[in-house]
């Protein structure tokens, strides 16, 4: 009996020591990993810091302005290009009756009041300001219709896709738009 008890305790001790050793080893490994990750993090942070400095240096406004002047020729936004709030954006114009034309965008643009004839040459109206006489005050609606006209003019006239009559009807809601898109496929 006492021999059995001794064996039990001995096994328990061995088991405890082994478990202890294994757990300790695992913790040590994890600790090493953690230290390594932290060291790497610090290294990376330092690299990011150096690269941020480099990035800022390369993005000096003066340098960017120079590159712009040489290659892309962007100009500052003019006040009339800024739409101050959502109310300034007009709703899509209501399309005419179904039998009128299969291209609602071009139709709507033509219907929009314009004091000057819009050139239908697709390359001409790149500068929106130049496309209209300077005296005319640009409402966003006029600007938008200019864009859509220019855009519509690039669409080749002959091979028009056959559309269902429903496609030209102004959709009432977002769901209706989705239904319309699904129907046209």
């Amino acid at each position, binding site marked *: 009996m006492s021999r059995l008890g001794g064996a039990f305790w001995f096994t328990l001790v061995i088991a405890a020591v082994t478990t202890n050793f294994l757990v300790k080893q695992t913790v040590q490994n994890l600790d090493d990993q953690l230290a390594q990750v932290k060291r790497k993090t610090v290294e990376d942070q*330092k690299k990011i810091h150096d690269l941020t400095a480099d990035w800022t240096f390369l993005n000096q406004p003066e340098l960017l302005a120079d590159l712009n002047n040489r290659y892309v020729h962007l100009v500052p936004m003019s006040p*009339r290009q*800024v739409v101050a709030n959502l109310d300034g954006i007009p709703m899509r114009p209501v399309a005419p009756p179904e039998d009128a034309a299969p291209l609602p965008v071009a139709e709507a643009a033509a219907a929009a009041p314009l004091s000057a004839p819009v050139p239908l040459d697709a390359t001409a109206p790149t500068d929106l300001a130049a496309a209209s006489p300077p005296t005319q005050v640009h409402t966003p609606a006029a600007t938008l219709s200019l864009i859509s006209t220019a855009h519509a003019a690039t669409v080749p006239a002959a091979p028009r896709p056959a559309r269902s009559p429903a496609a030209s009807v102004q959709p009432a809601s977002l769901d209706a738009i989705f239904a319309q898109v699904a129907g046209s496929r």
Partner: protein
Amino acid sequence: MLSVQRLDDNPCRPRHFKPPPCAPVVADPAAAAALETTRTRLLLAASLFALIFLVVIGRLVDIVALGGDAADPRVAHNRLVAPPLPPRADIVDRNGTLLATNLDSPALYADSRELLQSGENPDEAALRISKALPDLSLGDIRGKLASGRSFAYLKRSLTPDQEFAVNSLGIPGIEFSPAARRIYPLGDLVAHTVGYCNIDNIGQAGIERGLNNTIRGETEPVALSIDARVQFVLKDELQHVIDQFDAKGAAGIIMNVNTGEIVAMASLPDFDPNHPPSTNPREETELDKDRIFNKITSGEYELGSVFKIFNTAMALDGGTSTMTSEYDARDDIEIGRFTISDYHGKHRWLSVPEIFAYSSNIGSARMAMAAGADRQKSFLAKLGLLTPVPNIQLSPEEIGKPHFPAVWRPVNVMTIAFGHGIAVTPLHMITATAAMINGGILRPPTMLKVPDGEDVPGVRVISPKTSEQMRKLFRLVVEDGTAKQAEAQGYVVGGKTGTAEKNLHGHYEEKKLVSSFMGAFPINHPQYAIFTLVDEPHGNKESHGYATAGWTVVPATSRIIERIAPLLGVAPQDENSPEIAKALQIESLIGKKLEYN
């Protein structure tokens, strides 16, 4: 059974009863004593071990259950690498763009003792080092290597390439000491605001100097109110004015009128803080001084007609004039050895808005005389125009002190009305003007970012009604006055021009002008004020020979506003809309048209 009975004679004992074991009876007393000693020693040893185990168990319980000494720094940190603390905090602009940071840049020093001990030839070593670092003098290096001292800097702030080159020479006794160098990635863009540091990382100018102690102790970046993009636009247009009018210099400042934040501040010519000009009195040139000098915060100028802003506000707020009051501007005023005359003389009685729009010196002088010296002085003092700007994040050396007469005589009252005989800094000018148009609250200027939506406390200096009248007058000058070219379509600009002759050695030089423009937009609900100044511009063909504000800084301001307003999120408005026209209409001028010559 029998044998058991033999062990114990009692037949009635329970079967499982075992008699207590008896210690062997030792007859020998000496042996008994020895046995007793052994027993005692055993007990002692056992209790000692028990005690040790108890201590161990106690400590285990302490660590596991009670948390132990978690605060012991060795436990937490001996295996972890903490990032080294930066010697100075980064400085960023309001959008987080890096304006100043630290980069590793070791210093090179020579341990001459070790070099000589290793048997290296100092002359030869010096030659090799000077090949790797050609900007050092050979004789200098040789002297340091042969000196026998254990420490002498050869060069500080090495680039990575230089470090590699020297390291690969492999000379004993040539060592690196880790150091960080302050760099400014945007170069000269924000030179005066951020300032610069010397080689020991101590701030020498700008924020670096003014907030030196804060920046040294901080690890989080210091966020300035400056917007680097707006700063670029301001600087770009000012440089354009300098080039166009062959001017000596120019300066500009843009301020948020509702918080006092300085969004951009430029003073030209400027410098690259990565290579600041020498401030050593022996080698410093006039140009170096001019480049380091911040015209906005340190430059004291007699700004001329822009001061009529304060003169008019004083008269309207004090009730000594109303918008319909008229003053005699028929003839020049002779006082002492001075003659006060008008640049655009009308030679008739002028109303207050006309005096402001035509910039009549005579009318302004009469308005000031009607208000009186005491009122004028106390009004200017209330606006902070007679004391250095308080609480700005700069060292006192960089904050200009206004100049004004010690005794406030009538002639001073008259000249101060149109900005002569008093010199203030452009920072004073814009701070006080912001209070004139923002509804009447004076707020101290700041170079640090104010968190979005935070209310900045201020002091009321004029009534909201006077402030509204001032806004109308500002608009009048741009619509019908001296600053028509300031109009920026959609941004409803208002402002006041000023062209002053420079006072050199006690007399005014007719050809040396300081032309300035104090503008604000959108003037119906002011958000930003902008003050620009050009030093000694020269007229050219396009300006028909004029170098006045209307031809120099006014068109520049218009261009600046057109470029920065989208960046600052100012929504364009239709200035011809009835609401805006009505809000900015001066009742007494309805139906009248200001004629201009």
